[in-house]
């Protein structure tokens, strides 16, 4: 089964987009997204973009993970 991997929208033509997954270009359908734009990062599964990646949430997750190291109980 094709897994889902984040890619960046390069070009949009109607309902279809050219998405770059690290330089490999994939055609993906945008039928399930609201207002996609070039530059957006999206999750592609079976040739369809199923969701946009939320940049702020990604940063927040990393911030939480990085702050785990500030806990005194971790100093061994």
């Amino acid at each position, binding site marked *: *089964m*094709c*897994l889902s991997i984040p890619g960046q929208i390069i070009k949009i033509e109607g309902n279809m987009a050219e998405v770059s997954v690290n330089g490999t270009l994939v*055609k993906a*359908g945008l039928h*399930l997204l609201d207002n996609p734009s070039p530059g957006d990062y999206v999750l592609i599964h*079976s040739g369809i973009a199923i969701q946009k990646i*939320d940049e702020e949430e990604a940063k927040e997750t990393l911030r939480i*993970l990085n702050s*785990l190291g500030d806990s005194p109980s971790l100093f061994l």
Partner: protein
Amino acid sequence: MKYVDEFRNQKLSRLLSEQIHAIVKKEIRLMEVCGGHTLSIHRFGIPELLPPSVHLLSGPGCPVCVSDIRFIDHAIALARLDNVIITTFGDLIRVPGSTSSLEKEKSSGADVRVIYSSLDAIEIANQNPGKKVVFLGIGFETTAPSTAVAVMTAAQEHLTNYFVLSAHKVMPPVMEALIDEGILIDGYIAPGHVSTITGSAMYRFIPEKYKLAVVISGFEPLDLMQSIYMLVRQIEEGRPAVEIQYRRAVRPEGNPKAKTLMNEIFELRDDWWRGFGIIPASGLALRKKYRQYDASVMLPVSVEPPIEPKGCLCGLVLKGLKKPVECKLYKTACTPDHPVGACMVSGEGACATYYRYGKE
């Protein structure tokens, strides 16, 4: 790779490992029900980073593995018809049916093509007006919307030679069936990409009715480690809930557009799951409105009676009751080169994953 590399950071994964070690007191059993999670966990060597009291079980997360042998037999019967092109994701090609496989049919001359996008089947139908193109629709709520997009496109383009044979299934009923059957778990690592579509509300019954923890997890090592950390905290603190770890892709409401389209094209039906038998309202069938795209309606064939492989423990492995090594056929009669059961041939199957990553 953006949104990938940052979530594979070694320092942070070690931090999370230390945190989990610091807070765990009980024996904890966590089950994942997503083939992608099965793969990631073993590919990155996550069990080695966890305390021995945290046990990870693999459940029915591989849609190929849980599908009835009759689905493959049906696909094979269709492949043998004249002027039919079978389009499928690669995983299905080598899955053993009762007496054959799609790969074997292909080498006997059937037109079976591996595709990567559900829309590829539409393109093939357009390029081959004289042939009937059948798409084998397998997968959970992550994949069903893609099939729905293809059916909608076929309707818009007034295609008369595109059909779907659906084996799509939904997750919550089997997650409940596992608990009802008495499988001993303390929480679920809930499927990340299924939840991207469905949102988180559908898991609420798990903490509310059964007091089990649920965390919706991404697929990178840090996602899984953080999810396990969040689950252990819920369990140790006695506050089972549904939490979203995979916030960058999962919103509580999911993808409403995808859900609406799925609802337009599909309806729920009772479905047969390997290891469980029939689970009510757990499968997706094309609605009557779209019956002209339903291969099971439009292309009648007689399907041979199913013959289940002897000695195959896939059913028990899928419920997390047995590990692959406990099956007598594992690594002996059943290997990736000559698989007996679906769990070995599917790229996401527990047996295939164990074999590939050399686990005992």
